[in-house]
């Protein structure tokens, strides 16, 4: 396991940061940590990199307890604020960070060139950071995080200041790192992004994890079914509702949501047995976004007081 947390909890005084976070991220995963503003995403990563201390719970990174300095050499971190010493030039900042990672001079210089190229800041590196645009500063932060060629890359909303092209570049970069076997922990509220690059996700709401698993699993969980029915009548509607499928109509289309594939013929049966003419039945793949919104609205009732196996995104 690259990251393993057990009941990790942070209280800011009497304000909850996050609570009972149990996660496992294994090697080579791109793990998406999704949640709304204030859900507790940054709180978790700040604990992981040693900026804040957990109120309770335990965590291990790369097999060592939090705060281990040897392990920190193998972690790249992009903070959500991405503010850097702005009186330095981009290149000077890279050198500073290389020295903090204890990278020797020549190897450091080569690597600096490489990462500057990766984030497309080549040509800007000798200007003061003060003169960089927000997006450029975030790119620089990304370069700093990539500097030690880290085994674990922790990114807190890495594209919040970037333009669409920048977002795509970061996405490609993450996929490239993934294929190189690196583990990436990605905080985001941009589902579209997470959906494309991550293989595992956890959803956090009000400080608690409310769902998690591999993207495939999560998408498989619920299926939206679209039907076109002639003679749609009250009986069909009632029967579907009674069985808990909550049908809703859009023009001539009737939509229902089912928990699993097995339920699809059951629905067809209900429609036909009650006199409906079924012209078409299409199972739609639920996009993670719908799932996300649904989960977020459902509320955090499913209590995460202890670790649940299905939250552990084992590879």
């Amino acid at each position, binding site marked *: 396991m690259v990251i393993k947390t057990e009941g990790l909890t942070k209280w*800011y005084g009497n304000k909850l940061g996050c609570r009972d976070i149990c996660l496992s991220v294994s090697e080579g995963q791109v793990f998406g940590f999704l949640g709304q503003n204030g859900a507790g995403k940054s709180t978790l990563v*700040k604990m992981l*990199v*040693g*900026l*804040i*201390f957990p109120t309770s719970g335990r965590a291990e990174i790369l097999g060592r307890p939090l705060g281990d*300095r*040897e392990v*920190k*050499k193998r*972690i790249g*971190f*992009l*903070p959500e*604020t*991405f*503010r*850097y*010493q702005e*009186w*330095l030039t981009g290149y000077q900042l890279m050198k*500073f*960070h290389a*020295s*903090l*990672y*204890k990278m020797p001079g020549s190897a450091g210089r080569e690597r600096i060139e490489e990462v500057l190229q990766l984030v497309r800041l080549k040509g800007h590196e000798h200007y003061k950071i003060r003169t960089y645009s927000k997006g450029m500063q975030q790119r620089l*932060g990304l370069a*700093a*995080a990539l500097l030690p060629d880290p085994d674990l890359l922790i990114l807190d909303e890495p594209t919040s200041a970037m333009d669409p092209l920048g977002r795509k570049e970061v996405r490609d970069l993450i996929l490239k790192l993934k294929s190189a076997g690196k583990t990436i922990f990605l905080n985001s509220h941009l589902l579209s992004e997470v959906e494309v690059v991550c293989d595992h996700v956890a959803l956090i709401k009000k400080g608690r994890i409310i769902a998690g698993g591999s993207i495939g699993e999560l998408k498989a969980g619920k299926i939206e079914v679209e039907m076109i029915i002639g003679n749609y009548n009250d009986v069909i509607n009632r029967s579907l509702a009674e069985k808990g499928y909550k049908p809703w109509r859009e023009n001539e289309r009737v939509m229902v949501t089912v928990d699993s594939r097995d339920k699809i013929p059951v629905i067809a049966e209900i429609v036909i047995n009650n006199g409906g003419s079924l012209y078409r039945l299409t199972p739609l793949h639920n996009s993670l976004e719908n799932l996300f919104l649904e989960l977020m609205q459902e509320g955090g009732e499913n209590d995460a007081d202890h670790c649940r196996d299905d939250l552990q995104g084992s590879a």
Partner: protein
Amino acid sequence: MMLIIAGMTFREVLSKKIFYIVLVLTAMFLVVYGIALHFAVQDINKWGGVRNIQARLIFSQLLSLGLYFSTFMVALMAVFSTVGSVSGEIETGTIQAVIAKPLKRSELILGKFLGYTVMMLSYSIVIYLGILGITFISTGYEPSGLFSGLTSFLLIPLLLLVVSLCGSTFLSTMANGIMVFMLYIIGMVGGMVEQIGSMIENTALVNIGILSSLVMPSDALYRKMVFGLLTGPDNPVTAFNPFSTMYPPSGIMTVYTIAYLLIVLFAAIRIFNRRDI
């Protein structure tokens, strides 16, 4: 690691315009002091120069005036340059990427301490030698105990720097500035109270003074320095004026200050080790 942080601290100071403004203003201060001294000397030399007791008294007073304002300047510099050294970085967020690196938090604090110390000591030595040099050149007045005077003088910015660094690990920049400045004033008022107390032989006042010197020994150091410099075998005790002293603090003050300094530095590390960022 410590040296990397120290170097960065040093570069941060060098990168600021205010640093160069301060240098220019400091040079101006020395020039003004030199000119004032020059004209004073022209008058006083009519009385027979530096061998005349009266003239020596005036020279020593002028020197104490210069030293007083030098101390003040050095103290202000020490406070203002360090007041946001940690809190400012927390407020802007620049510290986040640094803390996530393989470095101990204590190395960060000690590195900053080292950087500021080198900077403040160089600045203070220049001012100290400047004031004494100018005085010697234009008046021929030679103070006694140059070296122990320098020790006391250097301890003042060091002391304030450490207190201010420590404050910035748990207070906001603004709150820290107010706290350190208040402490400095307490030390100053306490010093005056103690002197007046000694003069009128009032133990209560003396005790209040000593107590405030223990809270903030900066003024005690100043008085120790001035007393050492201006009262030697061949220098008369100066008359009472707010800038000089007749009742020097005991030698234990230096030892106390060094212990104070180390304890506050240690406290800064302890506090910072535990705090959330």
